[in-house]
């Protein structure tokens, strides 16, 4: 029985800033914007954190399930490099505010931007041995940005948001190719979050490790899957997208052994890879949610999928530190319809665009989003202009004795 993603939604915040505004504000070289191949990045608000992002991504998926299907969610895994506590998981809050069954297993995983992919594979393995017919797992990749001018160009490429994946045996969005995967991992300090207040990154080393891992994990995939080759086995490719320019370089590297001309490489990129970059170019890097935003982007933006028979997509997940996996699955026009119904593109378009001064005003709050505090109140009134009365969202309101509290804003109330 095939397992995979039954439903997929992405929440990428309520605010964004254009990359040219970021570059102008920081006095960066505007000529380099085409290299990062991004137009906007999502920006977090003071009432948002990894919990609200996760819940706001997942609730629209759960609202579509009947009571029996909701009860069949036997596992909740949050994947985050934005943990709130060294012991208590983000999943424990998410479980509560999504109203999941008390009989559901909970877990938080951390493996930088690779975490959600490993969680997807573990969840599929768990479901394959579950005795419950129709059992499901919910995997949510959720993160916030902790970057300011110290991050240089990476500040403009770092996003904010969450991708929620409902996993089960009716994999409408992506049916995993069972046994078709390749992994490649080793210790390197290319980028990291050593404290809850800032990130460190060695750009060159991280890009190198990404490409090295892509080559290594695809070679492992080829060892496991007879006759697989990057040019003809996959009609689509979606790669972890820290910024579009790296994905372009990765594609160039993968095709180098085939000796194609530059226009041939470009045409292959436009057809098989470019659709994956449309949404990531509007949000910045969502960490381990990034690959699943790229998958949604392929499904909504590839002209090849409408009304077509099933097609194979190759996916590459990379997490700094580092660990990686190349895997594959099957998509078709039903996948397109399932993802399109979530309205991800409309939600990205509805974000409020900030100017650089507004961004700077929010930045001190964003940088403190993960700092443990015994007591805190979020001044919701000060930021209420960002909340739409018609949209139901979870917001962070206060912290009491280190316990974060949240409230539902909007018409729906608790699930």
């Amino acid at each position, binding site marked *: 029985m095939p397992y995979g993603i039954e439903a997929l939604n992405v929440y990428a915040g309520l605010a964004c800033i254009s990359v040219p505004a970021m570059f102008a504000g920081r006095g960066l070289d505007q000529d380099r914007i085409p290299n990062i191949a991004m137009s906007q990045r999502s920006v977090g608000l003071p009432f948002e954190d990894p919990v609200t992002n996760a819940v706001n991504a997942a609730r629209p998926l759960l609202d579509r399930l009947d009571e029996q299907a909701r009860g069949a969610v036997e596992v909740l895994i949050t994947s985050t490099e934005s943990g709130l506590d060294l012991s208590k998981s983000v999943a424990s809050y998410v479980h509560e505010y999504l109203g999941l069954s008390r009989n559901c297993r909970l877990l938080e995983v951390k493996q930088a931007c690779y975490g959600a992919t490993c969680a997807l594979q573990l969840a599929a393995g768990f479901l394959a041995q579950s005795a419950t017919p129709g059992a499901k797992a919910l995997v949510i990749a959720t993160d916030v940005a902790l970057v300011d001018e110290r991050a240089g160009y990476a500040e403009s490429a770092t996003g904010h948001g969450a991708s929620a994946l409902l996993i089960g045996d009716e994999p409408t969005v992506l049916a995993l190719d069972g046994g078709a995967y390749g992994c490649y991992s080793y210790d390197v300090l290319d980028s990291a979050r050593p404290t809850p207040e800032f990130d460190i990154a060695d750009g060159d080393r991280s890009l190198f490790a990404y490409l090295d891992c892509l080559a290594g994990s695809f070679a492992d995939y080829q060892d496991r899957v007879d006759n697989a080759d990057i040019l003809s086995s996959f009609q689509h490719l979606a790669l972890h997208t820290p910024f579009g320019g790296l994905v372009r370089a990765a594609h*160039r590297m993968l095709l180098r052994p085939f000796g194609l001309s530059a226009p041939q490489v470009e045409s292959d990129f436009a057809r098989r890879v470019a659709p994956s970059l449309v949404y990531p170019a509007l949000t910045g890097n969502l960490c381990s949610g990034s690959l699943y935003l790229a998958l949604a982007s392929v499904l909504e933006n590839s002209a090849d999928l409408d009304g077509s028979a099933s097609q194979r997509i190759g996916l590459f997940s990379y997490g700094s530190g580092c660990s990686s996996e190349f895997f594959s699955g099957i998509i078709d026009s039903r996948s397109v319809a399932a993802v399109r119904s979530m309205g991800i593109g409309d939600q990205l378009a509805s974000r409020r665009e900030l100017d650089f001064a507004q961004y700077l005003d929010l930045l001190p709050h964003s940088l403190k989003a993960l700092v443990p505090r015994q007591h805190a109140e979020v001044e919701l009134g000060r930021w209420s202009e960002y909340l739409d009365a018609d949209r139901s969202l979870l917001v962070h309101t206060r912290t009491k004795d280190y316990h974060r509290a949240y409230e539902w804003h909007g018409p729906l109330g608790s699930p």
Partner: protein
Amino acid sequence: MAAIRRSVLDIFPDLDPALVTEDRSLQELGCNSVDRVDVVAMTMEDLGVSVAASDFRGVRNIGALATLLRRHA
């Protein structure tokens, strides 16, 4: 050095090959971060050598890169 020069010229066909010297950095030749890893990856492929990402720490110019790659040849 010849392999590094080939990789740089592959990415920047219009560059004067004489500018690819040991004392210059790839950055000075106009390579952005993606170009730099491209040059390194292509050169390693060309030479059939493999160097771990962490070993590039402290490589500041093309001469140092050539020395590192030679050491792994």
